[in-house]
């Protein structure tokens, strides 16, 4: 069996769902779990609000500009261009920061009270980079994991054209399930059979929660993640669950998710 590093192509994942469903905790933990198993992981954060950086344990600086803000420039007509010589591979090399376990994190700037303005360069650079992220041969074996902004409408933006598998992170509440159903419909309309859509049930509190959500959405269920006090504590402190409560049942469930994703990718080879 090929080791992770020897596989020709890494995973191509994006995590979607309603705000508060736990996208960042799932994607941040999954990124590090995959990295510990030998994946070269690029975590992609296109949220204008802080998300995965806290959950991955990279911390968030409120004041500093993200590196990506210096990756693009605007011409007189107001059009944005990546700096000369900056393609996807170089952008990752130059503008992705290093998070724990060697995960590389490429993120857009976060909204502050000044609004989007100061971070517009990073948004445009990010968008252009992800459109061509699948092209460089040097990145083929990397695993891409995008943490997408919350909500249904966000699925209509093309933030993750590299993704082949969309993980719907869903709580066993109606609002969360309905949001996921809306996202799945929009994704299917946009991408057709080009993508796999599957389900991670999060904050499962009762027996049968996983099945209940799966029945509502009718997509393959990959993992059921239990509700856990450890997550609440980590989220309050703004630190990674893996660092604060490494033996949390949530971590174990996400390790199980990594098993499933890995096994499926080996089968595809």
């Amino acid at each position, binding site marked *: 069996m090929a080791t992770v590093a020897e596989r020709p192509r890494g995973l191509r994942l994006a995590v979607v769902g*309603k705000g508060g469903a736990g996208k960042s905790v799932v994607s941040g933990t999954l990124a590090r779990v995959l990295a510990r198993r030998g994946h070269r992981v690029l975590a992609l954060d296109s949220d204008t609000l802080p998300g995965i950086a806290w959950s991955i344990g990279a911390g968030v600086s409120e004041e500093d500009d993200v590196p990506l803000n210096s990756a693009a420039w605007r011409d007189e007509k107001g059009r944005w261009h990546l700096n000369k010589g900056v393609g996807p591979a170089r952008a990752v090399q130059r503008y992705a920061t290093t998070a724990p376990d060697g995960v590389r994190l490429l993120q857009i700037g976060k909204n502050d009270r000044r609004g989007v303005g100061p971070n517009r360069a990073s948004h445009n650079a990010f968008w252009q980079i992800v459109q061509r992220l699948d092209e460089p041969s040097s990145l083929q074996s990397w695993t891409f994991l995008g943490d997408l902004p919350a909500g249904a409408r966000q699925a*209509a933006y093309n933030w993750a054209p590299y993704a082949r598998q969309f993980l719907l992170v869903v709580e066993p509440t109606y609002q969360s*399930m309905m949001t996921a159903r809306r996202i799945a419909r929009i994704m299917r309309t946009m991408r057709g059979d080009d993508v796999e859509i599957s389900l991670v049930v999060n904050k499962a509190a009762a027996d049968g929660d996983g099945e209940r959500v799966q029945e509502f959405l009718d997509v393959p269920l990959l993992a059921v993640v239990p509700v856990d006090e450890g997550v*609440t504590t980590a989220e309050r402190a703004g630190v990674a669950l893996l660092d604060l409560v490494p033996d949390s049942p949530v971590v174990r469930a996400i390790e199980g998710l990594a098993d499933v994703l890995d096994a499926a990718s080996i089968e595809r080879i």
Partner: protein
Amino acid sequence: MKIVVAGKGGVGKTTVSGTISRALARAGHDVLALDADTNPMLGVSLGVGPEETDLLVAVRQGLETGETEHEETTEGFVRRFGRDAPDGVRLVVASRIDRPNPGCACCGVSAESLLTELESDGKIIIGDLEAGIGTVMRLQEGHADIVLVVAQPTAKSLFIAKRAVELTDDRGGRVIVIANRVRNDEDLEVIREAVGDCEMVVVPDDAAIALADREGRAAIDVDPNSPGVRVLIDLADRLASLAVPV
């Protein structure tokens, strides 16, 4: 009077909007509940039911496919894209969900334009905003008399709540923070520390609200006497008293 409800996704904006709307209507007020979220869910929290809520969204989406004709007047919009909810609340869905741009260019309808154009004249308008701070940034004079910022004790929620409070303060608007899902003093402390010295209402973590979320019902229908729901009903009373001209 116009009240808008803001905060991070998943903090409980819709529960707050729905419960306050129902409580105000029960107290005899004329209430228009405006779902200005691009992921409209207010119907669920008002007690209209999940599938009915999605149907209402589908009518709005029908504009795109030509199944629905466009509506140019605000009154017509309220009639066409609305429905009655329990206790006599009128629910209107403002946004579409399938496009990067949630407004409708030819009707010119957006959450902000509706907030501007809807006359409150005796009505109380409750606007459930899109998650995050985008709409709060775009709020102008006349959009809202009071901004309710819902926060829960997580770093991400407080990042957003803090900015929503600052933005509203900068504009000289009145803001009330709703500290939601508060389990203990520590929870309350982190919220207080983040949002500073502003008016605050504390909603304790509440089993009835959690059950309502799981079942897709209105919290006020699950248990109007649960501790969390009671706090919101009291808040509705206070808001109503502010609406009466002195």
